[in-house]
């Protein structure tokens, strides 16, 4: 009977942790996306300094969670997002409006897809 409780405990713990992870990554990516969208709004208004500041904030948040992200996600995906952050930063430095906007949109989609793949939906299970 003890073995049954241990096995059930492990299964429930895994389920709980994975659900927490799913909720956490959704929250995390929503925060990042909000920061990146705000940066874009400032860029569109011509306030490049504020845009850079918001973008850096998002980048820092990403880097602060680097270990967590590397442990739980495919490294291809996290590396691609990391590269996109640098790309966006460069366009912000050069104040290239159109190219920044395209790169930022790509970065937002990459981040959103990361969370979407972790959602407990029938689409993802199948």
């Amino acid at each position, binding site marked *: 009977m003890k*073995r*049954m409780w241990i096995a059930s405990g*492990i299964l429930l713990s895994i389920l709980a942790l*994975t659900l927490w992870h*799913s909720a956490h990554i959704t929250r995390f990516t929503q925060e990042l996306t909000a920061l990146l969208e705000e940066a874009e709004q400032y860029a569109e208004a011509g306030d490049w300094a504020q845009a850079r500041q918001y973008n850096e904030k998002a980048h820092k948040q990403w880097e602060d969670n680097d270990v967590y992200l590397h442990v739980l996600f495919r*490294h291809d995906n996290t590396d691609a997002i990391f590269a996109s952050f640098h790309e966006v930063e460069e366009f912000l430095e050069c104040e290239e409006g159109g190219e920044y906007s395209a790169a930022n949109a790509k970065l937002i989609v990459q981040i959103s897809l990361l969370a979407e793949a*972790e959602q*407990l939906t029938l689409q993802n299970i199948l």
Partner: protein
Amino acid sequence: MVIAFIRTVILYLFIIAGIRLMGKRQVGELEPSELVLALIIADLAAVPMQDYGIPLLAGIIPILTLLSMTMLISVLSMKSVKFRALLCGRPSIIVENGRLHQREMARNRFTVDELMEELRMKGVTDISTVKYAILETNGQISVLLYADQKPPIAQEMALSPEEPGLPIVLINDGRVLDHNLKARGYDRVWLDKQLKAHHVKRTEEVYLLTADELGRVYFAPKEENK
């Protein structure tokens, strides 16, 4: 990660159901849940092992899930007869009183050739001598002959043969196993006598020497020394 967990649970149950539907002959000596575990655990471990781009947790979570589910299923099957029957199936009688149960054989995807092969392996050539042949849940066949077809045992013949016990190896490929020699109550002097009796001078010339509890010795010299 929750997707990996749910997918593992679904695939595990799906493969167990598949193995059960395949019939007992496909199971071999393992129970369905053990076979499923053996089939997929190695593959799950190999993927993150080879591909550094996949997090280790992507392998660990499904493996841990599988091990926990197997543990859970094994405990449940111990506790509940109904659950065990559902998971492992029930033994099937395929020969009864010398008559084949063809429907039962078909249900278990068991052919006549396979049955004949199994019977021959058990030293039975005539189905009419079989009282029961039972296909066990692990895919093995148990054969029970009619009482008048069974070889007589010593007790039935009112004989009292001596009990020789377990023969112990005393010389293994030229090496004397002193621990076994002592355990059997012998010493090197006794061993030298045995060698002399078998016309051998050194232990290195002996391939195998065993002695049972009655003191009966089996001797095999090394072939190159012949």
